[in-house]
């Protein structure tokens, strides 16, 4: 049977919240050449049983939500990143060297339960 989409705003459900960290706000624009900042997105929101059957959620989340429905002592499934991407930083260090550094899994692209 089709699971009814929960009423009310989806805002409370698990989704990606966007947050941009500007290096200028940190005073880092004096030594970071590029980029101007980076996306410090985060995942937050509820994972009710109904959500675990469609959104990019894992099978495990489905089972945990089912168990939570049966026994509330089992915690709900949680909202976590399901797709991450890297960032590269081009900056100058204290010895006038220009440095290009890559950091993996720094930006949250997608969230799921």
């Amino acid at each position, binding site marked *: 049977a089709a699971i009814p989409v929960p009423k009310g705003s989806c805002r409370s459900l698990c989704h990606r919240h966007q947050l941009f960290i500007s290096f200028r706000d940190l005073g880092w624009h004096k030594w970071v050449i590029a980029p101007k900042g980076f996306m410090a997105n985060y995942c937050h929101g509820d994972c009710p049983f109904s959500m675990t059957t469609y959104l990019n959620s894992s099978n495990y989340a489905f089972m945990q939500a089912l168990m939570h429905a049966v026994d509330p002592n089992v915690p709900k499934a949680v909202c976590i990143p399901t797709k991450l991407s*890297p960032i590269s930083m081009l900056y100058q260090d204290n010895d006038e060297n220009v440095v290009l550094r890559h950091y993996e899994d720094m930006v949250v692209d997608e969230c799921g339960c």
Partner: protein
Amino acid sequence: QTSRFQEYDLLQFLDLERAPSPHRFQPVPPVLRKIFQAREAAAAGGASQDLCYVKELGVRGNLLRLFPDHGFFLNTQEPSRDGPCLQKFLYFNLSAVKEKGKLTMARLTLDLGPRSYYHLRPEVVVSLFVVEERGVWGRPHPKPGRMLALQSVPGPQGPVHFNLQGVLKDWNGSGRKNLGLYLEILAKGDRYSGVNVQVENTCDRLMRSLHASLLVVTLNPEHCHPSSRKRR
């Protein structure tokens, strides 16, 4: 106070002891700018990319550093008729290379000035030697040690690259914090030009436009899993 504390944490996370406070910005080397822009474009397109492989250089690595030369010319007087027209001591402060990690590239680039085709310049011969650090750097004339390269560069010129990975591997093990090289450039005159006018022009131009830099690429195993299979 809180933001100060968090900034410290973020710097630590980025493997930086403290926020650099450079007095002046170095020009961004074209090779790093090109790699950065390619990465940004790939990220914007959502393409998954292996950040631990630098395809533009064909080596693995997740940290690229370009060290400017802090050396000095040894011959400022007019180049002698048949001696080298340029002798330079190249000096790279490598103390910033602290992190554990595997050295995957050390490339010295000598930019011999803009390529120009309006007149072919004489061939130049580039000789490169290691200068042992101990005790000679203070002297005006550091004694060249082992020869690293002898390369003939036909005009017109442009950047010339030398692979110094072997030299830096030794250096890495020795705990030394800087690298000294001795550079000599000879311009082969045009036999028919009589007073070697071309050689003098070439020498003057090289003295004005020579620019040396050292590109070092390291791979940090903690940040780069051995070329990971595609995630299931």
